[in-house]
């Protein structure tokens, strides 16, 4: 009810304080709501009336309801959240790998020790069926252990893919919700700011920041536009794009991220550009921890199988027959690009000591083949050898008529560990003897000695590491990364905590403060009610004075 005068002032005051109480109650009710920014009723004096000799005030009016929101701090918080989520995802996933290869892990190094120990018993008793049986058993145990480690790493990969899928689904849901809020907020852009809708949208943006690295921009209509990675639009005004997972060109199981625009058109692959949030952490984990670890375990397997088979072939078994392959031969994985039209290349191991644990891209441009290292993009020189190409321990045989533009991804050792099987099944076939010992020399153990000594052979990589030396380096590398990510997560948690404290200082609800406000506005309401009563009695007095 408008109007000047005591009654008007009183009534307006009543309504104003009622609103203020409402705001205070809203704050109290939302004390636990995450992302809620404390609201304040802004009181101002109502315009006064000029009565000639001065201005008589018109009481109190509600100027607005202010939301205590600091955009700069909020932006800092979201940015830090992105990094924190990335680091904590990396820490969690890397700890998973650490638990497989580390001290309390699957014990691949122990299986290697047991295998070479059994070979040693062969050197002192090469003809004994029991000893030979022991060698077969521990060889099978070793092969199985390699396969188990690989299977567990593969399981991590499956979980990672599921995590990537889930995260993109969550991102899409958030993008939709943000777009809807944009719609609601921009439709009332002319009026006062819709505080609670703004809070909701800010909370969604923070959640989105924890999933993927984004940049935001608020336009003139009150929409918050969101771009992911290097600038692909995720939310534009009231429209939301969606992220989808696509297979890489070479490997259907390797998921990459693409942006599907709401207006149609082909999805845009942003694979390597997502670096932050849980999604970026997951992709980084795959690139810098999971793939290299699986490659390294495979490299150890490939060198073991190759060196062992070579030495085994140099010996003779219990019947004097030349030893063949002890382990089944391994071969590199070759993945043709999905749009290749020509025949495939074949790749075999040429010199396993030249393997580096990296993956490669091989491309034909119409006249020459080029080989690049995946990840660094470094070009690798190849030497020709009788129609084949040699590089990094591999022998690459191109097809007779290659097609320009065809490309292949070569993963020399990614799947090696899952292919470790025994080629022989009869213990009598173990070639423990040297052929020079002559016929019937079942007591000769010269080749068994050489086989046992392979444990000390430095045949892994250009640094000449032993098998367990390479494994030691893997354990230390993974352990160091795990520790670093854990430490980094803690640091960012601390920074986040700090920023949150500062945000809360301005925007958080303090129940004691609101209790005081309740008291304050309640008293003010009571006083204003008195004013109304007084106005009423003044009016009554006037009425009774003029009654006849």
């Amino acid at each position, binding site marked *: 009810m408008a109007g000047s005068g005591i009654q008007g002032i009183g009534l307006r005051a009543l309504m104003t304080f009622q609103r203020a109480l409402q705001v205070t109650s809203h704050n109290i009710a939302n004390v636990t709501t995450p992302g809620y920014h404390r609201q304040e009723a802004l009181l101002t004096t109502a315009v006064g009336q000029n009565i000639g000799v001065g201005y008589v005030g018109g009481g109190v009016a509600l100027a607005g309801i202010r939301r205590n929101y600091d955009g700069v701090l909020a932006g800092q918080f979201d940015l830090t959240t992105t990094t924190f989520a990335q680091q904590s995802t990396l820490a969690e996933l890397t700890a998973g790998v650490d638990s497989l290869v*580390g001290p309390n892990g699957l014990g691949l190094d122990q299986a290697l020790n047991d295998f070479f120990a059994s070979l040693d018993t062969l050197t002192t008793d090469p003809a004994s069926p029991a000893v030979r049986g022991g060698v077969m058993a521990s060889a099978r145990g070793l092969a199985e252990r390699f396969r188990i480690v690989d299977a567990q790493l593969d399981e991590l990969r499956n979980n990672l893919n599921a995590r990537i899928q889930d995260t993109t689904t969550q991102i899409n849901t958030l993008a939709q919700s943000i777009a809807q809020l944009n719609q609601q907020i921009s439709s009332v852009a002319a009026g006062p700011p819709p505080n609670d809708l703004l809070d909701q949208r800010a909370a969604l943006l923070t959640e989105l920041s924890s999933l993927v690295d984004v940049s935001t921009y608020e336009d003139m209509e009150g929409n918050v536009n969101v771009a992911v990675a290097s600038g692909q639009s995720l939310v534009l005004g009231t429209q939301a794009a969606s992220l989808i997972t696509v297979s890489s060109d070479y490997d259907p199981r390797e998921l990459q991220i693409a942006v599907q625009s709401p207006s149609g058109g082909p999805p845009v692959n942003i694979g390597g550009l997502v670096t932050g949030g849980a999604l970026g952490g997951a992709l980084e984990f795959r690139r810098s921890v999971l793939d290299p670890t699986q490659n390294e375990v495979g490299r150890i397997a490939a060198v073991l199988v190759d060196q062992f088979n070579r030495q085994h072939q140099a010996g003779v078994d219990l019947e004097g027959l030349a030893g063949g392959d002890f382990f089944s031969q391994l071969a590199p994985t070759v993945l043709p690009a999905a749009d290749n039209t020509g025949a495939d290349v074949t790749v075999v191991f040429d010199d396993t000591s030249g393997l580096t644990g990296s993956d490669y891209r091989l491309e034909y441009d119409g006249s020459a083949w080029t080989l690049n290292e995946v990840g660094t993009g470094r070009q690798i020189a190849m030497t020709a050898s009788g129609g084949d190409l040699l590089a990094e321990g591999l022998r690459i045989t191109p097809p007779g008529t290659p097609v320009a533009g065809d490309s292949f991804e070569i993963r020399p050792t990614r799947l090696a560990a899952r292919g470790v099987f025994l080629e022989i099944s009869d213990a009598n076939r173990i070639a423990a003897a040297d052929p020079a010992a002559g016929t019937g020399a079942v007591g000769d153990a010269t080749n068994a000695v050489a086989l046992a000594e392979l444990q000390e052979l430095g045949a892994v990589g250009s640094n000449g590491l032993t098998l367990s030396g390479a494994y*030691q380096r893997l354990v230390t590398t993974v352990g160091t990364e795990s520790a670093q990510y854990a430490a980094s997560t803690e640091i960012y948690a601390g920074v986040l905590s700090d920023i949150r404290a500062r945000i809360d200082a301005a925007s958080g609800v303090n129940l004691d403060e609101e209790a005081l406000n309740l008291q304050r506005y309640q008293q003010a309401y009571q006083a204003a009610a008195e004013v109304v009563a007084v106005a009423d009695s003044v009016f009554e007095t006037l009425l009774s004075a003029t009654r006849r």
Partner: protein
Amino acid sequence: MRVSTASFYLTSLENIQNRQSALARAQEQLATGSRISSGADDPVGAGRLVALDQRISRIERFEVNIGTVDSRLSLEESVLAAASESLNRVRELAIQANSGATTSEGRRAIADEVRQKLEELLDLSNARDANGEYLFAGTRSQTKPFVRNGNDFDYLGNGGQRFASVSDDLQLAMSDPGDRIFFDILEGNGTFATLATGTNTGSGVIDAGSVVDAGLWVPDDYTVTFTAVDQYEVRDGGGALIATGAYQPGAEIAFSGISFTIEGTPEVGDSFDVRASREQSVFTTLQELADGLELAGQGADVGNLINRGLANVDQALGANIAARAEIGSRLTLVDVYREVNADQKLQAQTIKSDIVDVDYAEAISRLEFETVALEAAQRSFFTIQRLSLFDFIR
């Protein structure tokens, strides 16, 4: 600075969670006794554990091998000692047979005992270890090495040896091929052997002889023939005359850096072979001796037989002693390296313990500290959160 209610709860929760996880960690370390439960706890240490575990495993293998080598070489040693006893008995018997007091019946009895010793020796040389492998067959260890072949003996093993790693840089032979010990034994004095020709009619007895100047010796089959009762000539394998001289019983006859003596009275036309030593198995030596004793008449035949037999038996004893000396030196190394390995293993285990073992005193006091800290965090939260203005607005 304002503190919002929500942030107070959040901070308290974080504190309590941090204290809880520190407490859990201290508890885990105490329960497992290990400082390192994952690579992240000590990446370099975890890596070194891999290397140390391998080293310890390797040394333990050396220890097992040393045990195997020790027992096998000890077995060889005791078999060879028994063989040596048999040979020494044959030696005694040979001397006995040569004494004038022994009759031809006595010699036949001696021949029987020599044959017994031959069987013993054959058995010993074919000895087997606990796994059933023949000790002295080289690397053809499942083939019986020494067998009869008519009147002869064959070696069916080979010259291979089996080696076991007892340390990083040392491999010890754990077997010795029988050919060197029992079969390929040089006859006579090791350089040359002397034999009386079977058709001699005189009573000349030739001894085993010795080398005076090895540089002058030219290996060949020489023949010493008596052209007269007191005259001898020495011709080489091609018939060339090397030396002549007057014969005196017991006097030294020397040529080409060697010398020997002949006793008794040779007849004209009697001859003796002085030939470069060939290889002869100890079994053949004993067989020769036994056969000869059964057939021999008296005097010179027995003398020549015994001289030759004794010389050959001495050579066999020499081969036996040489083998046992070799084995003995290896057994010494076994003892040395047993100590070395024990030291190295202790060293590796100590280093490993330094890396991985929990310092119990430190861990227990840390557990106490974390317990107190957690309690403090919990109490302080409880105390502060009870304070609310609403309690006073009634």
